[in-house]
């Protein structure tokens, strides 16, 4: 017995009133390190033990507020800076829509952080052992008795005094509790056995979830949203003899808003009859530059000099600044974009009519900038 280390003395009481009175007296006597164990929270115990208000509230406040701020910051970054899209005609920074999320994240952060703080700081995780565990005392106070434990590391504590004091309070079953002999400090939650059980549980649970959700419960019509009975672009379709899923328009019809080009293969007629419906202004020129840089510049070069960026993979086109090209009408340029010429394909499917006309305006502006008149320089 001599090498055992004393943890403290415990005493048992029968009623909640007794334990409250006992706790009051122990606190009045000047004991600081003692604890009360009851099968359920006894009202008024904090007062009786003269405990200071819990500091856990501060953790909840700090983490809750950081949840609010980070939720706001994340949403601001996502929907204002990184990926601004208009949703429901609302401004990018749609604060009222953010509020519920901020509220939820606040509650989530505060509650999780409070529990984690409690376990990490107050319960001294990962240490899971306590000298009172696995004692007769603990078995009693966790079913129908109320107990008090005076700890040996208290300043006032002496064995005889603690014993007699507990007797004076009317405690029953006064027992000395010793630290367990072997490796007390090493009893932590991070034991290999415990960890492997944890991992095994995780594997079983996730495997069972996968099996039940993806195999057992995978049945029509409760299958996943990604499998739907609809035609997806580029997919085959056995319904049609040629197996193509994407069908050409029905013969003799055109899609809405589509006006067929009536000068197909007739460049002279187009050059003569077509007139540019657009007026060169900042909007149309900006649109033209945009489309020119996307569709024309890979071959014609950014300034129309025929300096392709394609490194000879494709024959270079002639310059747009030649005498011949400058004397072309708008309609002729439009015809080339729409119908193609020599090796150049038609761009009618890539660019709308308005965009093509805007591009014509931009080409005109480029030509003018290379062959400016005297009057332009003034």
């Amino acid at each position: 017995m001599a090498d055992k280390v004393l943890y403290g003395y415990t005493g048992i009481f029968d009623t909640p009133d007794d334990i409250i009175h006992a706790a009051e007296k122990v606190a009045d006597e000047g004991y600081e390190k003692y604890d009360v164990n009851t099968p359920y929270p006894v009202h008024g115990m904090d007062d009786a033990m003269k405990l200071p208000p819990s500091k856990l509230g501060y953790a909840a406040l700090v983490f809750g507020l950081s949840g609010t701020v980070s939720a706001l910051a994340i949403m601001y970054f996502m929907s204002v800076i990184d990926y601004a899209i208009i949703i429901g005609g609302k401004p990018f920074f749609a604060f009222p829509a953010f509020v519920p999320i901020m509220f939820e994240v606040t509650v989530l952060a505060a509650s999780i952080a409070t529990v984690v703080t409690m376990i990490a700081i107050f319960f001294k995780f990962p240490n899971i052992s306590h000298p009172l565990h696995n004692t007769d005392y603990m078995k009693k106070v966790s079913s129908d008795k109320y107990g008090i434990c005076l700890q040996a590391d208290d300043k006032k504590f002496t064995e005889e005094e603690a014993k007699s004091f507990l007797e004076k309070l009317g405690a029953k079953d006064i027992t000395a509790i010793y630290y367990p002999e072997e490796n007390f400090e090493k009893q932590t939650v991070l034991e290999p056995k415990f960890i492997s059980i944890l991992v095994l549980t995780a594997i079983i649970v996730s495997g069972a979830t996968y099996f039940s959700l993806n195999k057992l419960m995978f049945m029509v019509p409760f299958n996943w949203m990604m499998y739907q009975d609809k035609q997806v672009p580029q997919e085959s379709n056995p319904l049609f003899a040629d197996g193509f899923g994407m069908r050409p328009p029905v013969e003799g019809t055109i899609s809405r808003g589509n006006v067929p080009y009536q000068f197909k293969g007739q460049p002279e007629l187009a050059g003569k009859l077509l007139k540019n419906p657009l007026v060169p202004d900042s909007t149309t020129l900006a649109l033209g530059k945009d489309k020119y840089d996307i569709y024309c510049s890979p071959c014609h070069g950014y300034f129309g000099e025929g300096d392709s960026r394609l490194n000879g993979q494709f024959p270079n086109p002639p310059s747009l600044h030649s005498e011949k090209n400058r004397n072309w009408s708008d309609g002729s340029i439009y015809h080339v974009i729409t119908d193609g010429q020599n090796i150049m394909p038609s761009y009618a499917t890539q660019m709308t009519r308005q965009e093509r006309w805007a591009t014509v305006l931009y080409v005109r502006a480029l030509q003018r900038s290379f062959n400016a008149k005297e009057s332009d320089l003034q």
Partner: protein
Amino acid sequence: MSAVESNFEYTRKDLPGNWSKLGIGLTVVGLLLVVVAFFVDNTRAAFNNLIALMFLSSIGVGALFIVALEYLAGAVWSTPYRRIMEFLAATVLILPLVALPVYFNLHDLFHWTHEEAVQGDYILEAKVGYLNIPFFTIRVAAFFAVWIVFFFLLIRNSRKQDDSKDQSLTTKNIRLSAIFMPFFAITLTFASIDWMMSLEPHWFSTIFGVYYFSGTVLAALAAGTYVIIVLNEKGYFQFKLLKDHFYSLGALLFAFINFWAYIAFSQFMLIWYANLPEETFWYLNKWEGSWLFVSVGLIFVHFVIPYFGLLSQPSKMNPKNLKFMSLWILFAHLYDLYWLIMPTYSADGIAFGWMELAFPIAGLGLLILVFSLRAKNQNLLPIGDPKLKRGLNFRL
């Protein structure tokens, strides 16, 4: 521990005499101003009278609700001061009187009472089956009748118990409370719709009744908390309230502050999100001109300040703080009603003058007067209630 002994003897002590004097003084001054107001500007006075009516309804009906809730929930902590809520609930008795001037000025208040306005207005024509003066009168009379009948039934049993100490009276009141609850929910919802939502007859919000309910309970609770703390300070209860009692009152106030904010925001966000013109105009009216400041102020007055004022545990246990916050919340409820009602009167901007002060003064005077008249020769504690002793020793 300050446990109250089982032989706790209560000797009746009347309320401070200057309470009824204060009540009479405020009522007389207020009523004089009110009469002048009706002569100066009838319409504006009618709107202010409506605010006062809704404010007094909040406290009276809300207090009745809290009494019934205590019986239904079997609450112990509030038993020692249930009488205070019962006295406050007596406000329902004067509600018909306060409503009379409003009733005689319906044309000034409600657009839908004008037949020529209803004609040709598709929405108003569709609502004519509900929004017409005879049906309105029947409804309003029914609300007052329900409140007053249940007030008398509940209070009679509670009072009888003081002498007879009969526990079966508590059981009876529990049954009565259970019957009262659905009546309360329906009457309060429709009262809020009839008196306040129909000010803008084109507008509708299904959450409006709940919105008014949250303010109602808050106002009744705040008024009760204030009186309880003052009486406790002066020793009228003959026992000292524990901090557990204060904490419970504070926690309930805090909960309803959050509940109000939750409901108010839900109403706003749904309308803001859906962005339907027939709903949004109600908020837009309150968002234009100087009403913007009142609307933004409402968030702070009714939520932010009381929220942080009652957030921490010590602040709920501190009677001084609680006393201040309960007065603040009473003011916030009045502010809320002003924000709900007045923009209909003056859409261009804030209307605030002596009239807006006269009616609250008269209302406050009536409230104090009714309270002190009711409390005369009454026990301030429900001394026959079987839950009283447990309530006095209430521990969290």
